[in-house]
């Protein structure tokens, strides 16, 4: 029992430097990328803005609440709901900043495949969600 506890402690302890890398990376992101900078990247064209939204969401980090607030502001600035949905979905499903930790712990091939798939799915989920909303309303 004691051995299993120490094994768990040791297993997590070995990964603390990787967690710190992700946290320090997130700190840099939060200090340098403001909501205004994110808003300025969108043009108002849904075809261009949807993949752009997915890219910005993918490289962003932090609490998902921030993505909803930024997403709400983007909608007010006439950015399409397709782009905003891709942005908020990619924010929580794609982890570019977490990639070093995911790759080292779960394997590089797994991390690459999972993040690419999540990126593609963020666009597909956005299209499906907004199209369904259009049909329902």
């Amino acid at each position, binding site marked *: *029992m004691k051995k*299993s*506890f120490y*094994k*768990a402690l040791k*297993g*997590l302890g*070995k*990964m*603390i*430097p*990787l*967690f*710190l*890398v992700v*946290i*320090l*990376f*997130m*700190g*840099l992101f*939060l*200090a*340098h990328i403001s909501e205004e900078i994110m808003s300025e990247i969108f043009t108002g064209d849904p075809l261009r803005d949807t993949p752009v939204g997915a890219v910005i969401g993918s490289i962003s980090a932090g609490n*998902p*609440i921030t993505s*909803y*607030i930024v*997403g*709400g502001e983007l*909608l007010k600035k006439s950015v399409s*709901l397709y782009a*905003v*949905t891709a942005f*908020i*979905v990619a924010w*929580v*499903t794609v*982890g570019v900043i*977490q990639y*070093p*930790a*995911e790759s*080292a*712990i*779960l*394997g590089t*091939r*797994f991390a690459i*495949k*999972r993040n690419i*798939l*999540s990126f593609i*799915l963020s666009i597909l*989920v956005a299209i*499906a*969600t907004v199209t*369904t*909303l259009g049909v329902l*309303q």
Partner: protein
Amino acid sequence: MKKNKNEGYVGMRLLGLMVLLYVILYLLKPENTIKAAKASINILAQILPIFPLIILFMWVVNYFIEPKTVSKYVGRGSGTKGWLIAVVTGILSHGPTYIWYPLLKDLRSQGMKNGLIAAFLYARAIKIPLLPLIAYYFGITFVIVLTIYMILASIIEGKVIELIE
């Protein structure tokens, strides 16, 4: 899948590079770098309370759960039950995604499928406590439709990961 036994070594090297980056940025833009360091400390303070929970889970997995049990519920022959467990536990799990990696690695070594790990990680994006906030910004219908598609996407992602393995 290649085994990664050197997380500690890789982590220390990356951490060294990150500290070096902070030192360089401090020399160039001290105010922003201090802001970044403070933001990092805030994030660390938020996730610290979750660590004992993760240690507890890892300990329980190591001590009480045998590989054949893991295989039965989330292994190769787990079927629909496995997908259901991965998606539901993903939705219910708390804290940042990266602190779940060690536990998932342990579960994988005991037989958990990669597809179910991917489904778990995707389903984590559905955060029940935050649903009212999304509804506030985007409407209740949006939340319901988005949640349904995200559950479907978590299973699709897991299935595709299995197919391309």
